[in-house]
């Protein structure tokens, strides 16, 4: 099944989006952030907390207070390792206890420090590559999953309850399980530690919680003879650090959007762009799929008239991810229809839009999001809306489908809500599996017209963004009428300009190759 769209227009979108992404790239290249620096410390294996403050925060704050952060954490850690002969973790312990000030040690020659930093980075990466290989082997031991992957959410606030719900969902046929994070975790400028059993509307993302869920999903995978994908959120002020934790604990899919934090969480735009770049770079190295959040863009505007903003954001998200080194088959672009069910032919428009996204991004493991806006307490009608959504998803051959819940508008899902939802999706996946190969749009019919119109609008908006510049576009409300100031929003104080001795060998291709070879 194909829509008859203009390839030139699609190419134009890609080309303009690339220029926009390059503008972003140019402006963030001289910058780093406290979150990126903490991610580097976590890559070096530094972990632990003192009085609820993670070591990585204490270290970065310490350097910042001494006005020494411009050189980056790795410079100081490598220099300290050279001076003391200690490991990064032991250096961290000493700094935290106050018995060592990294800035007061004698400064070795830059070449020496650089060599040490590269050695540390190589060791760290090769450790992670070994883990990745083990996970790949596990994944390979299962038969490939049926498309589309069925994705459900658990959100109890207690990781142990989440595990019970997740295992049940896997037994009911789910392929991917996402644990919703506690409300406003994205606004915390640190990653909480330890196993948590209290959350608000979700469960805290911590390394310990990731590990518990990973074990549980690997266990249930054996039982159901299907690999179960673990999903979490790589967003907010700790985007880069969360990426490291995800890699360490073997997560498969991370929700990660270049614009979401800026628009919907009021995070500073420079902070977010720097963080998303490093997080995507790392996730890309270790083949973690990212999914973007374009569904949010049409939740409060007229979803029919303004749909093309979804495409605009997808094109830019794709380019930004590619510039961070990600392969196309890891860039899961998000979308939803959220159309008013009362619009005549709403199902046709939903089908058209879903097919358009699929056709514009054929290699992307696109993630299709369910209707939420027009769901009410009428759980029976909500179930009908979800069934139609599932049909569209299978028909247009989406890759990852987040299942809607009959009780979407009411509460976080009960066990039977998820069961009914999966039962419906499994039925529809089976009943309409060949639709995409057997059925065809009429050439130049309503669907083709709608698709062309949307693509034309996307080109226009992208041109407008290119003309005013992305930073101005964000402050003028081009994205769903939300306006953000360049220096406004949270986390701007955590952005800094890199100094002349700044080091980040994790970005060095040579080091990556070396680490990869060493892991064999």
């Amino acid at each position, binding site marked *: 099944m194909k829509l008859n769209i203009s390839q030139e227009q699609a190419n134009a979108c890609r080309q303009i989006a690339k220029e926009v992404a390059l503008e972003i790239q140019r402006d963030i290249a001289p910058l780093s952030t406290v979150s990126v620096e903490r991610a580097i410390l976590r890559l070096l294996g530094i972990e632990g907390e003192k009085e609820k403050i993670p070591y990585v925060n204490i270290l970065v704050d310490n350097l910042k207070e001494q006005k020494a952060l411009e050189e980056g954490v790795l410079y100081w850690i490598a220099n300290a390792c050279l001076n003391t002969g200690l490991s990064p973790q032991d250096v961290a312990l000493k700094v935290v206890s106050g018995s060592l000030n990294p800035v007061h040690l004698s400064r070795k020659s830059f070449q020496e420090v650089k060599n040490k930093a590269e050695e540390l980075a190589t060791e760290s990466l090769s450790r992670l590559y070994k883990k990745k290989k083990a996970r790949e082997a596990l994944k390979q031991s299962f038969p490939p999953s049926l498309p589309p992957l069925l994705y459900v959410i658990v959100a109890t606030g207690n990781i142990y309850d989440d595990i019970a719900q997740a*295992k049940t969902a896997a037994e009911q046929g789910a392929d991917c399980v996402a644990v919703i994070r506690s*409300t*406003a975790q994205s606004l915390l400028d640190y990653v909480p530690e330890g196993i948590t059993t209290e959350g608000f509307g979700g469960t805290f993302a911590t390394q310990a919680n990731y590990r518990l869920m990973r074990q549980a999903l690997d266990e249930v995978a054996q039982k159901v003879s299907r690999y179960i994908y673990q999903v979490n959120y790589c967003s907010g002020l700790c985007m880069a650090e969360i990426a490291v934790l995800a890699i360490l604990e073997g997560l498969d899919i991370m929700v990660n959007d270049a614009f979401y934090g800026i628009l919907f969480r009021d995070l500073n735009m420079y902070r977010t762009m720097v963080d998303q770049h490093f997080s995507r770079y790392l996730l890309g190295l270790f083949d973690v799929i990212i999914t973007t959040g374009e569904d949010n863009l049409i939740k*409060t505007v007229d979803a029919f008239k303004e749909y093309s903003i979804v495409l605009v954001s997808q094109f830019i998200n794709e380019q930004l991810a590619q510039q961070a080194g990600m392969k196309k088959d890891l860039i899961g672009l998000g979308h939803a229809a959220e159309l008013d069910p009362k619009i005549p032919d709403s199902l046709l428009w939903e089908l058209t839009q879903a097919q358009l996204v699929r056709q514009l991004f054929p290699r992307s493991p696109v993630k299709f999001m369910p209707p939420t806006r027009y769901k009410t307490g009428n759980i029976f009608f909500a179930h009908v809306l979800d069934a139609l959504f599932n049909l569209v998803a299978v028909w247009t051959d989406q890759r990852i489908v987040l299942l809607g819940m009959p009780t979407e508008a009411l509460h976080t899902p009960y066990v039977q809500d998820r069961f009914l939802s999966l039962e419906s999706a499994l039925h529809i996946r089976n009943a309409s599996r060949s639709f995409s190969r057997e059925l065809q749009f009429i050439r130049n019919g309503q669907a083709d017209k709608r698709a062309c119109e949307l693509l034309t609008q996307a080109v226009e908006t992208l041109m407008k963004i290119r003309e005013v510049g992305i930073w101005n576009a964000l402050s003028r409300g081009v994205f769903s009428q939300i306006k953000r100031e360049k220096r406004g929003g949270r986390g701007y104080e955590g952005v800094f300009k890199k100094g002349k001795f700044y080091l980040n060998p994790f970005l060095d291709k040579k080091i990556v190759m070396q680490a990869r070879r060493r892991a064999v």
Partner: protein
Amino acid sequence: MNIGEVRPYGDRMNDGAIQISFSLPVPVSARSIEAVKLIAARMGMNNIRLVHAQDMGNNFSFYILYGAINISVDLQAIHVPEVELQLFDFWEINDLIRREFKRKVVVIGATIGADAHTVGLDAIISAKGFGGESGLERYPELEVFNLGAQVPPELVVEYSKKIHADVVLVSQVVTQRNVHLFNLSLLAELLEAEKLRDKLILICGGPYINAQVALETGFDAGFGPGTTPLQVASFIVHELMKRKMRKK
């Protein structure tokens, strides 16, 4: 129809028919099925028909049943207390503002004084919202300025003047030595001194905030924990309409 004796209706008057569904944390078995019927019976159901029982995996099971209950209510005897705040939905709020005021309503949000807690403020204001509801930023007809944390009351006053605010939302979490009461009263007084008080809707919120606190400090409303953006937005619209009526 006798409204003195109303019963659930399936297909015949007064049949008392109801349907329920629920899960049990055990697999389906002869015993679990009996257990489900027992639960229904204890709920007061009779003519219980268990129409569906299914395993859901991981030792959970799902049941659907029909039955009848012998309960009737007298509609005349029911007195519903006056609903204090009639909730609008997202679309109604925007439509009302568009129709009645023909301009965007300007809202300022801030946590004032030394208070650095913004979770509550963000739940109400930031686009992401709270409890599945969009925050005020997402309402196309509200123009929202989030001043963030630790804003001095003087600055709130200055800013409201500058942008011609219609609504000021203040969050207070810290209540040590009643510092919240002090901060809130101070803001209300400063606005009064600047002759802005009557032009504004003043709203406070926080874990220890309620209507009483609002009254004491000279605010128009005080919202406690669990308040959703929709409640705040509904209040704003009600209050604006009330004031418009008064002017007429």
